[in-house]
Each structure stands twice: as structure tokens, then as C-alpha cells.
């Protein structure tokens, strides 16, 4: 009989298939989806994040763990919705206008999903107006802007300004990408900055004041 600890281990080790067999077993045995999420799955991703920070695991390990987590979320989501439990945070993410790079943005989206966020991915080359429209529709707690190039960084400034001008003063804006720095985040009025996908979850939580 599998235990919560087995589920946690399977996510840490990125064993997606194991996750798919363990969760139904645990639900069948009477575990609640909320307990599975809060006492096994989220702690598993926190453990992976910690190992990544300490150079004990590398990018591929982190990605396969996040994917196993995502699979697990699919299995418990119906039960969470039925119980009236919504994801703690909704996030919108996109690569800013003029920039076509999606790898970093996709990694952050994967990590945020792995942390239990609902993530709406707007894709690449996203104009400021599209971010504003998506914020109106989805009412996210956080917006992630990505840019890989020094030449497309100014689009971040335009996008932040458009979001603020549209009256969304409280939505937290997090930026990231190869040339991005904390000082640039400060300069353009973003709420935070993540150096890489591994730190994007912590950065989002810190910005939201969440544990």
C-alpha cells in the first residue's frame, strides 16, 4: 500500500508514472486531495527547489519533477474543484512584444504549475494590450514578463506602464530573462525579479507575501 511519503518521493524523483498509480490508490484509501497536495506534493516541489539551489540536482531533474507534479495535479484537480478548493494563486505569463523566445518563459510556467499555481500562458511576442485584457479576464495575483534580449527589454517597461495605467495597481509583476536584473525591475516599476526558473517560485511567493 502506497503512502504520502511514496507520493512525495515519486515527485522528487520525477516518476510521473508512479504518481499516476499512487494518487488513485491514496484517494481510494481515504486520503483527501487537500492533504495530498499540502502534505506531499507541494513539500516535494519545495524539496526539489532546495536541492537545485544547493547544486544537488540540475535543470533536467527539476523539470521532470515539475512535470510529475503537473500530472498529479491533473488527477486531484477534479476532487479539489468538487470540494470548492481553488488554486491559491492565478498567474499570467508571456514573452513581451518583439521577443520570440519561449524556452525560459515555458520553464517558469512549468515551475509555477508545479507549485500549484493556475497558469495562463499568453505565448510569445505579446503586446501590452493583450496582457491588460488577460488581467481583466483572469484577475491574476501575479503577472510574469519574459525577455531574452537587451533590445526587447524596453517592451517590459511599456508593458508594466500599460498594466498600471489600466488601473491594475495591486497585481504583482515579476520579470525575468537573460539580461534582466533586480535594478532593471526597480527602474521600470516591476514588483520583483527571478534570476532563473529555479528561483521563480520563491520569487513569486515572496512578492505575494505567501509562505
Amino acid at each position, binding site marked *: 500500500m502506497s503512502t504520502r511519503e511514496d507520493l512525495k518521493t515519486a515527485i522528487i524523483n520525477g516518476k510521473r508514472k508512479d504518481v499516476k498509480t499512487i494518487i488513485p490508490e491514496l484517494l481510494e484509501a481515504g486520503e483527501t486531495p487537500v492533504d495530498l497536495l499540502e502534505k506531499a506534493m507541494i513539500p516535494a516541489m519545495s524539496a526539489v527547489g532546495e536541492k537545485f539551489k544547493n547544486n544537488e540536482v*540540475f535543470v*533536467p531533474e527539476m523539470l521532470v519533477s515539475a512535470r510529475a507534479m503537473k500530472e498529479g495535479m491533473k488527477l486531484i484537480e477534479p476532487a479539489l474543484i468538487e470540494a470548492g478548493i481553488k488554486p491559491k494563486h492565478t498567474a499570467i505569463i508571456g514573452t513581451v512584444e518583439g521577443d520570440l523566445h*519561449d524556452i525560459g518563459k*515555458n520553464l517558469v510556467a512549468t515551475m509555477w504549475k508545479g507549485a500549484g499555481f493556475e497558469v495562463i500562458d499568453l505565448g510569445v511576442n505579446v503586446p501590452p494590450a493583450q496582457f491588460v485584457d488577460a488581467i481583466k479576464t483572469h484577475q491574476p495575483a501575479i503577472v510574469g514578463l519574459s525577455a531574452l534580449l537587451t*533590445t526587447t527589454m524596453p517592451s517590459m517597461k511599456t508593458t508594466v506602464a500599460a498594466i498600471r495605467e489600466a488601473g491594475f495597481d495591486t497585481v504583482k509583476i515579476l520579470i525575468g530573462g537573460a*539580461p534582466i536584473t533586480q535594478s532593471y525591475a526597480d527602474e521600470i516599476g516591476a514588483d520583483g525579479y527571478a534570476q532563473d526558473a529555479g528561483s521563480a517560485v520563491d520569487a513569486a511567493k515572496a512578492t505575494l507575501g505567501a509562505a
Partner: protein
Amino acid sequence: MNTENRQLHVIGELMNNSYGRARKAWKARDLDGYQNLARLQAESGASFLTFNIDGTRTLPVTLAEMLEFLPRVIPAIQEVTDLPISFDNPDVAFHTEALKYFDRSRCRGRPILNSLSVTRADVRAMIDLVGEHDMDVIVMASEYQTADGEHQAAKRAGDIVKAARHFAELLDCSGISNDRIIVDPGLCPIASDTCGGVNLCLDAIRALRTDYALEGIHISVGLSNFSIGAPGEFRIPLERAFLSLAIEAGLDYILANPEKNTEPLPTNDPMVTKLREVLAEGRPLADEDPEEAGYRQLDALMELYGS
């Protein structure tokens, strides 16, 4: 397969603020520091020297600061080497200014303008500089223009060929022949390659090499990108293994650190065989979601790290 013997040309990448030694030289505007980096790379077998003084995550640099330094640093580099410089910046103003201080007569070959891409604002002005100063030119072909003028990231080898052909035609109109064009198809880090990017790069090299309209072009990648995110002890072996596969596909230039990663591993080296196997896992099966194959490639990569 392109097995004909092409000489591998190394564009030394150490004069770039991503490297600590370059940052130190930049911060102090230390001409000796740049001369040492130039000399070191020349002695290590580089054929060209990248010159990139743009900012990084930890070091903000303005265009004005760059322009101010060019009149002193370009002649200083040329004092210690006759290697051609590869000027690396997205802004045409940088190239215009840098070339004012570059003495072509002290240089053993054509300098390089790095780079043209569909996302650049001043492609026409950059091509004019290439013509006026008798330069070679790097074309970033990882992005292309669709029929309705939209810019897209290349997803297939054909997209990369399309971007390369677009620039080859533009350059031909200015009298710049294919043998002066170095096409960079883009190389992503294998550590986060869940979408077939490394296979796309190799496929594109093969497709570029066999395209009749692109006969005579050169092909380059930024090799150090490949191993970002890999455990330290695997970085150089992975880069050298990839280089071996890329040369086999038709690569003849690399942007790399000439001290470390410019020697391909023999094609029968176990690391080359393992990398081939990892990349084979990344090929989607019939009707398979490409992401599924991408994660299979990651699994195989982790096994390689564990072996």
C-alpha cells in the same frame, strides 16, 4: 552526411562581459586586459576574436559608454594581434563607430559583423557596413519572417533555411557572396531542451549545407550555450561531443572558448555515442506529442549524468 574535410574556424569568445576576465577589463577600461585576452586566444588557435562589451545581468552598460571606449580599445587590440575582429552588438551605431577605429590593413582577413537577424531595426545600414568595410557577416537564422511579414521563432529546419535564404538574397543584391555569410541556426542548452531544439539545430545544419541557394555559406553555433545547466564535470565533454556531431552535419565555424572546448571528440568516443543516443530519444514517434519525446530526452540525459 557531410563528411568532406572542412577546416574548423574558431571565433574566440573571451572578450565578452559574460566572462569574469572581460568584466574586470571592462570595469577598469584596462587596455592591457583586452590585449592579454586577445593574445591568449590567438595563441590558443582562434581565427577570429569576438569583441562584445555589451552589458550582462550583473553589469549594466550603456551604448554611450561603449562608444566612448571604442577609439582606445580597438587600436589596442590590433597592436597585439593581426586576427580579424568579430564585432558583436545588435546596434548599428556600435558597428559604425567601431569600424572607424579598425585598421583593415593590420588585419590578416575580413572582420565579421555579428549579426543580422529579422528582428534588427537597421538591417539595411548593417549590410551597407558589411559592403563598405569588406566584412564577413553572421546571420542569426533562428527567427524568420512569414509571408505576411510576421516574425516567428524557427520550429523546423525549413524555417531556418528560409531565414538564411532571405539574408543571402539581400546580401547578394549588395554584392556580398555566400562565402562571406556565416549562418547561425541557434543552439539551445540541452539541459532544458524539452522541445527538440538541439535536434532542430543539427537538422538545420544538414539542411543549410545541402541547400543549392546557400552553396558556399559557412555555419556557426555558440558552443558554450549547449552545456548551460549541466553538472560542471560534464560541460566540456558535452560541448566537445556536440561539436563532433555538428561537424559531421556540416558545421565549419564555432563561437567558443579557445582555451577549452574547440576540439571535437572522435566520432567513436563513448560520450559522442551517448549523446547520439540521448538525442535519438528526443525524436517524436509517429503521432507522438513532441513534448513527450523532449522529456524522454531529458530522462536519457539524466542517465548520462549518472553513468
